């Protein structure tokens, strides 16, 4: 009996140690415990330890930055799903897109989520920028973060542009023909830039592959790293609302 009791106690203490190693501070019953939890937890550290109600007034921020980030997550997850069926080659791309739309279970839902979230993200990023401008939140000491934000806007637009080619329908091909011809009008480096973008002289297999690589790896990775900096600076420069 004593042996069994000892074993149970032993197991209990191991369990306690395991749970305690994850939840170190217990329930956040006081402000002090809550603050310590937020400070030492990886997920919660993104959130400030202390937030004034006035800082996060919805009528001030309209949550546009948060919505943009939420849509970025939606796009990352749905994009990952789409990659299971999509092959970036001119012989497969259009058929794979049609299969996703009409053959794959819930494929239409995932594709449309990706499509609509992409449209919505361009809109929310623009509105976020407009809000920051109109409330003067780009001023000192937040000039650097405004700069990071403009690069993030550019990356959002480039993601939108590269994604536009991937269905490989008539609209895609000619939109990218038009877009890369615009790049050609740039002085001196224009024609060379177009050659690098297309991987040739006209929109083709090489173009589809490089747009795909930039769309699924290159641009999201740069965007993610800049977002980390962007959110960090929001924290460090302080919130502009309700001063």
């Amino acid at each position: 009996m004593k042996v069994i009791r000892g074993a149970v106690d032993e197991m209990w203490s191991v369990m306690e140690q395991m749970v305690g190693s994850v939840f170190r501070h217990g329930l956040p019953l006081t402000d002090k415990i809550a603050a310590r939890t937020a400070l030492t937890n990886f997920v919660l550290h993104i959130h400030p330890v202390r937030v004034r109600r006035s800082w996060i007034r919805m009528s001030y921020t309209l949550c546009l930055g948060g919505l943009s980030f939420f849509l970025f997550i939606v796009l990352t997850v749905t994009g990952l799903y789409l990659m299971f069926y999509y092959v970036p080659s001119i012989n497969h791309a259009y058929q794979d897109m049609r299969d996703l739309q009409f053959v794959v279970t819930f494929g239409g839902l995932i594709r449309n989520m990706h499509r609509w979230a992409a449209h919505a993200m361009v809109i929310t990023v623009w509105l976020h920028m407009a809000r920051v401008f109109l409330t003067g939140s780009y001023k000192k000491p937040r000039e650097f973060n405004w700069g990071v934000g403009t690069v993030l806007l550019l990356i959002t637009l480039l993601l939108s542009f590269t994604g536009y080619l991937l269905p490989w329908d008539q609209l895609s091909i000619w939109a990218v023909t038009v877009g890369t011809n615009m790049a050609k009008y740039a002085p001196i480096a224009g024609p060379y830039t177009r050659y690098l973008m297309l991987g040739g002289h006209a929109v083709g297999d090489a173009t589809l592959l490089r747009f795909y690589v930039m769309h699924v790896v290159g641009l999201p990775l740069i965007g993610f790293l800049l977002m980390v900096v962007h959110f960090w600076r929001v924290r460090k420069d302080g919130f502009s609302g309700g001063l």
Partner: protein
Amino acid sequence: MAADFKRFIEDSREMSRRSFLAIAGWVGFTVASAIALFQSVKFIQPNATYEDPPAFKPAGDLALPSSYAVGSTTVIIDKRVVINRDSNGFYAISLICTHLGCTPRYFPDVTSDLVLAGTQISKDPDTGQQATRGNPILPGFKCPCHGSRYFRDADNFFGPAPRPMDRVHIELAKDGKLFIDRSIIVDHQYRLKV
């Protein structure tokens, strides 16, 4: 900033081993990074593209000049080329819109709707033809992207296109078939006489 730089220069007159190595290290790092950047750009620049070659011979029925009637316009859509035959010879048009590069499409009538709407349409500088109320229908090309329009001989007359579509080299090969090179742009007077 300026004071820092001045002090840096003054210090450098009597440079310590430590700061010399630090500067040498940073210079090395910068040069290596510049080379890496150069290599990255060179790497994504294809040296061979395996695209459709610019020179070709029209296949099948379109191979021989005798299969083109005088006054005919023939679109070879896969090659984005048009072959026109007039009384004074053949000429080829590169079917790429001079606005932003889409492919204009042939229509037997590209003018009558504009004439009816009262739009003044300029005279074709090469043929002297003009669409009027009395004679509203002229054949030509319309671009689906932004609505540029061209006469049958590639001269632009409506929409955002800034100049006529390019005329490209056409000749008769030794085997008597037509030969077109899209990489050679020729002037508007060029004709292949057969």
